[in-house]
């Protein structure tokens, strides 16, 4: 007899379903459904009270309509009413409707909770199960509040029926997942763990999911589960196929439970207790042995179940990574599966081997399968399997086989499925960089990559090749030559043009000796691509052109001609037009020396972790990365980057994060290491930027004060940087108000958690300066940057600096950092222009001894005129010409704006080039200001 008596359905429902199925068109179906919905609605609203059967029927119809993809916006109340019915079938359909259609923030939850409460206390196991199901399926916070204390009691009570126990275990698991704070295991812990010993296998099956989840979160409290799990596993594995009766599935004893037990053990390190460990190793060996035995059945279910256990056992062996014997056996077993006729097994073997490749013991063993894996990449019909093969090749790659693997991946890329191309490109780029011994191979590989899959080459990839070429002078000539050749192709990808423009602009001179690649030929080649490119690329090419003028003066006339033509100088795109105008002017006004300074070769980039890796990590989640990271730490020395400090490529970040269009962040903008390095967009600021270079290249701010002092005369730059974090500043001041943008960049690939920043004004500063800000997001993803805005108001003059405290968790460790924020009194300067006469008159007025502060000190930096001028301008005062009788001296005037008063300040700086000394004199209407300014400035020159 069938368990479901097919006839007991509801006639009206069957008729309705048949109607729907007979509808000839979508329109007819919708019409029929709308008619039915109207009917049900009127029935629900009608005066006549509906009996349980009708309600049940209508609710069932609604469920069917929902399945067809129509939103159900009524009937919830009727479903809730059914919950309190005494009839099982009515209750059941009510619960079903709620499980399927009610989400966790519905306002009906309270009513539902009432019904659940009744059913839980009914002592009718079937009703209890229905109620527990409902909690587990909806799993709202409110339900957790109502039942989190009740469920554990049901779970461990001696008189609870097995089926209820099973439901209670999973119900508790769901509540724990939604509201871990409400589920307090404390007193129940040991009894829950002992459910692993329960007589009823179903109870163990349900309980193990709960225990696994709890163990992941509180490994110490649940440690005792390890020995219990081992003994349970051992009993199952050693049992004959008939021992467990119903739990034997196609001659395999309790496969599901075995898998779950093996998973649970993967939450822990190998057992410390020798006996337990011995027993476990025995189990694992038995499982491996069984794989070699002839199958007890030809059915695919039999081998499936057997292999499910085998794969979990192998995962556990890999997880322990401590038993070389077992690891080798596991590897051999997977090797067999690589060539198995079952696609599923090939897929899983490739996947498991990927994790095995990162084990020290088995990395070599995995490598022996390289031909098989390459073959899989070429011949598998199923893209899922090919993708796993590509993952495995990536994981097994090392210096010895990198060339072969990269070549195979490149050739696969030509025919690869679109869905996995971008990821493949990233992988090739990473491997090429990581295992490059000669860099010409690296350059060839990346250029090939662009040729084959240009569309999938992201910014990170081509930024990276440029960084590497710039940092390694032994490859620059080769890169220029290769890229020049690549550009000869009639159709080349825009990314190739970008790389070409950049590299020739920097290193075109290295190949200019050959008449076939003379400067003009290079220029014409680049310019032939210009019109086919997008705006950002054109902008980059314009920068390359101006660099050409510097590299090859003989091209100047031609290039100026190009810049001067209407399509450039009157281009409708602002960025292009501006570049054309500025570069044209720059090339005609500036002397060769200035030009050479401005357009100097790019300085080497700071060594950092490849941004490509960060991108891949983002794409693939943690799983795919562990392998790489492990390899990173193993082979640090050999890396291209020499394992310098790791952090995402800030330059690339700047380009993609700042609101300025990325083109302006290329050639010239990339130089300032600040993430806020908005490109200098006028020739003037461009010059200043070059002069104030001291900032970013100064040694990293190990002393927190150090960063502070560097900002007295400038507003933007990097305040602080270490291996983990970079803090950039951009600020602007007006009168007594200021706004400071702080950019926190996570240089690692790991998320920062609980990231908090506090700005405080110590001591009397509190009454002098008003700093306001909003809290920042507590999570900073690896490679990401977040921004914080401070609004600053100067109430009265001040000498101290506000403090910025930063706390966050990196990995497990709490990081704590306090910096002085570079808010100094001079930021509130308004420049004041005045004549020589006025200046000296005021100078004399401020003649009280306290009003003057003077300091004589040795020069710490270059005494170059332009540098000094730039600094004094950065100070915020007006630099007055023709005031001091001695033209070597500098005088400045300004008014400091505070809320309460204005403070006039006069400054005189007398350099003595011979002695490399300065004398600095300040006179201000307020004596404390004189002293503070003198202190600050004495350390700037």
């Amino acid at each position, binding site marked *: 007899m069938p368990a479901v008596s*097919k006839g*007991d359905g509801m*006639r009206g429902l069957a008729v309705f*379903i048949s109607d729907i*199925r007979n509808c000839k068109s979508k329109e007819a179906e919708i019409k029929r459904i709308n008619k039915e919905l109207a009917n049900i609605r009127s029935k629900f609203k009608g005066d006549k009270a509906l009996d349980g059967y009708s309600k049940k029927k209508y609710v069932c119809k609604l469920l069917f309509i929902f*399945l067809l993809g129509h939103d159900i916006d009524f009937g919830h109340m009727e479903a809730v009413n059914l919950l309190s019915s005494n009839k099982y079938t009515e209750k059941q359909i009510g619960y079903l409707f709620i499980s399927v259609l009610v989400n*966790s923030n519905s306002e009906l939850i309270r009513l539902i909770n009432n019904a659940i409460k009744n059913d839980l206390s009914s002592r009718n196991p079937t009703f209890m199960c229905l109620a527990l199901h409902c909690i587990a399926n909806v799993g709202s916070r409110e339900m957790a509040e109502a039942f989190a204390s009740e469920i554990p009691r049901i779970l461990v009570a001696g008189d609870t029926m097995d089926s209820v126990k099973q439901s209670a275990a999973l119900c508790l698991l769901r509540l724990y997942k939604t509201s871990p704070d409400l589920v307090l295991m404390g007193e129940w812990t040991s009894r829950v763990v002992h459910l692993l010993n329960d007589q009823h296998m179903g109870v163990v099956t349900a309980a193990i999911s709960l225990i696994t989840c709890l163990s992941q979160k509180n490994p110490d409290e649940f440690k005792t589960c390890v020995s219990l799990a081992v003994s349970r596993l051992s009993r199952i594995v050693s049992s004959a196929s008939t021992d467990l009766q119903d739990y034997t599935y196609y001659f395999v004893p309790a496969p599901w439970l075995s898998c779950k037990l093996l998973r649970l053990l993967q939450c822990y390190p190998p057992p410390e207790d020798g006996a337990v460990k011995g027993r476990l190793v025995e189990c694992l060996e038995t499982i491996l042995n069984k794989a070699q035995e002839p199958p007890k059945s030809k059915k695919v*279910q039999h081998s*499936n179940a057997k292999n499910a256990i085998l*794969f979990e056992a192998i995962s556990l062996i890999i997880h322990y990574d401590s038993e070389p014997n077992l690891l080798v056996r596991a590897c051999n077993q997977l090797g067999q599966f690589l060539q198995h006729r079952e696609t599923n097994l090939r897929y899983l073997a490739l996947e498991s081997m990927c994790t095995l490749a990162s084990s020290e013991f088995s990395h070599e063993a995995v490598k022996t399968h390289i031909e098989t894996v390459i073959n899989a990449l070429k011949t598998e019909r199923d893209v899922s399997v090919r993708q796993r093969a590509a993952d495995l090749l990536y994981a097994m790659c090392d210096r010895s086989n990198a060339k072969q693997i990269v070549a195979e991946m490149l050739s696969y890329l030509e025919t690869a499925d679109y869905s996995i191309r971008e990821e493949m490109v990233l992988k090739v780029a990473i491997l090429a960089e990581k295992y490059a011994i000669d860099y010409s191979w690296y350059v060839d590989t990346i250029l090939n990559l662009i040729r084959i899959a240009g569309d999938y080459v992201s910014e990170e990839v081509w930024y990276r090749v440029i960084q590497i070429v710039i940092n390694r002078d032994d490859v620059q000539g080769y890169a220029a030559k290769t890229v020049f050749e690549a550009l000869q192709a009639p159709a080349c990808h825009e990314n190739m043009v970008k790389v070409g423009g950049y590299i020739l602009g920097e290193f075109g001179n290295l190949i200019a000796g050959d008449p076939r690649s003379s400067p003009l030929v290079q220029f014409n080649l680049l310019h032939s691509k210009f019109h086919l490119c997008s705006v950002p690329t054109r902008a980059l090419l314009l920068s390359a052109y101006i660099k050409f003028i510097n590299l090859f003066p003989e091209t100047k006339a031609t290039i100026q001609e190009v810049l001067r033509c209407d399509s450039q100088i009157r281009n409708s795109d602002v960025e292009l037009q501006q570049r054309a105008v500025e570069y044209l002017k720059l090339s005609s006004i500036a002397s060769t020396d200035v030009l050479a300074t401005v357009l100097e070769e790019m300085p080497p980039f700071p060594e950092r972790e490849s941004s490509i890796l960060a991108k891949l990590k983002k794409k693939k989640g943690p799983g795919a990365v562990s392998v790489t990271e492990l390899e990173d730490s193993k082979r640090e020395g050999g890396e291209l980057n020499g394992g310098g400090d790791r952090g995402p490529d800030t330059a690339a970040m700047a380009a993609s994060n700042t609101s300025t269009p990325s083109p302006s962040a290329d050639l010239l903008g990339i130089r300032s290491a600040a993430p806020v390095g908005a490109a200098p967009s006028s020739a003037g600021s461009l010059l200043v930027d070059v002069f104030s270079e001291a900032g970013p290249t100064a040694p990293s701010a190990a002393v927190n004060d150090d960063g502070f002092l560097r900002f007295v005369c400038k507003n933007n730059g990097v305040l602080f940087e270490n291996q983990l974090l970079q803090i950039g500043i951009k600020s602007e001041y007006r009168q007594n108000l200021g706004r400071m943008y702080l950019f926190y960049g996570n240089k690692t690939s790991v998320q920062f958690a609980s990231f908090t920043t506090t700005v405080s004004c110590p001591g009397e500063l509190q009454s002098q300066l008003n700093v306001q800000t909003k809290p920042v997001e507590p999570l900073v993803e690896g490679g990401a940057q977040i921004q914080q805005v401070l609004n600053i108001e100067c109430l009265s003059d001040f000498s101290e600096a506000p403090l910025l405290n930063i706390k966050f968790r990196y990995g497990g460790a709490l990081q704590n950092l306090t910096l002085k924020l570079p808010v100094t009194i001079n930021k509130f300067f308004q420049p004041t222009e005045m004549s020589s006469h006025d200046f000296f008159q005021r100078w004399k007025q401020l003649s009280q001894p306290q009003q003057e502060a003077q300091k004589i000190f040795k020069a710490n930096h270059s005494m170059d005129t332009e540098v000094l001028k730039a600094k004094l301008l950065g100070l915020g005062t007006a630099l007055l010409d023709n005031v001091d009788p001695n033209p070597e001296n500098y005088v400045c005037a300004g008014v400091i704006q505070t809320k309460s008063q204005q403070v006039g300040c006069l400054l005189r700086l007398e350099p003595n080039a011979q002695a490399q000394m300065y004398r600095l004199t300040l006179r201000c209407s307020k004596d404390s200001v004189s002293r503070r300014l003198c202190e600050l400035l004495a350390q700037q020159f």
Partner: protein
Amino acid sequence: MIKAILIFNNHGKPRLIRFYQYFAEDMQQQIVRETFHLVSKRDDNVCNFLEGGSLIGGSDYKLIYRHYATLYFVFCVDSSESELGILDLIQVFVETLDKCFENVCELDLIFHMDKVHYILQEVVMGGMVLETNMNEIVAQVEVQNRMEKSEGGLSAAPARAVSAVKNMNLPEIPRNINIGDINIKVPSLSPF
């Protein structure tokens, strides 16, 4: 954890949708469509696992599916589940349906959607596996049926109605689901 269980036919018509994480109704339908699109274009004899579509959570989730005659059974699971284990679980579920309905076919799922849900509830609860023993599951379903009977539902008349409906000349009369061996090919019934 199992995030969703989807059953749809060769044409993508959903026959059972069960989500264990909340998705709005229209999103549920989109996920079914996306999943159908991903699964249906795959040949037989390729592997039974693939990465989840972007709507359901992308590569952090796997779709594990089996194709029986006219129906696809798709489980969307996270990385904590054993792929082969889930494949067996689908088999257990289908075999249970077969026992409960006696040679289950697509029409049984259509006309007894509620029953299918109840059977599924005995296997999976809140996204976690409750029971894998078929006899135990069937026993629970039988308990439910006895209670239903004892409450004296209408019985014989609708039964006739349903069997009449089943024999009507409908556009698609699905074959019985063949559960013995998934490798047996069933000729496609699709009109294309």
